């Protein structure tokens, strides 16, 4: 499983991409594992406006994860 961090989340964590194998079974378990390793990141991931995409589709709330999937944490977006 690949975990991707974007924007300020990558700055906070000090990494942009990490592979977890075997993967956590759920998004909640992934969040808990990341927060255990880095409390500041854990807090930032549950901050206001942070969305999650699993395999490039936005998910809201809980999600099952599987080996080989890609989970991206997306802070508030701003293009243009």
């Amino acid at each position, binding site marked *: 499983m690949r975990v*991707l961090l*974007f924007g*300020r989340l990558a700055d906070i964590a000090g990494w942009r991409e990490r592979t977890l194998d075997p993967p956590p079974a759920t998004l909640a378990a992934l969040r808990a594992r990341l927060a255990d390793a880095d409390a500041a990141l854990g807090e930032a991931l549950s901050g206001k406006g942070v969305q999650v995409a699993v395999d*490039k589709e936005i998910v809201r709330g809980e999600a099952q994860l599987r080996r080989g999937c890609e989970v*991206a944490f*997306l802070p508030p977006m701003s*293009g*243009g």
Partner: protein
Amino acid sequence: MSVRLTTGPFEPGADLTRFCAGRTESGAVASFVGLARAEAGAATALELEAYPGFTEVEIGRMVARATERFGLHDALVIHRHGAIAPGEPIVMVATAAAHRREAFEACDYLMDYLKSRAPFWKKEHGPAGARWIEPTARDLDDVARWDGGSGP
């Protein structure tokens, strides 16, 4: 309909020419170019991060929604990512419709969306360091205009 991400500079005029060419039933082409500002020296570069494979698809969905909502004949979005110098184009949106009202509104709508909901993350570098730029209160107000039942 066309959505293009690029890490290099692009030429809005050349794209506008191609976009207008051969249209004999679209009376109206509205377009917008967003340029990186120097902020009187406070901004030396803009750095935009995209999520390739996700960003284009999300923008494409929004362009499809705009096309249906405003009855567009065609639409174009070009968006740069990577490092961008002051004065360089960041984004271009062009919309073609039979009449100007629809073309203008769709272009405005797409820009509001891009500013506050498109998957990009924007960092401004300057003499005082770097900062992440998130949508302003005005950006959020602007995009909220389209969420209600009002308008076309």
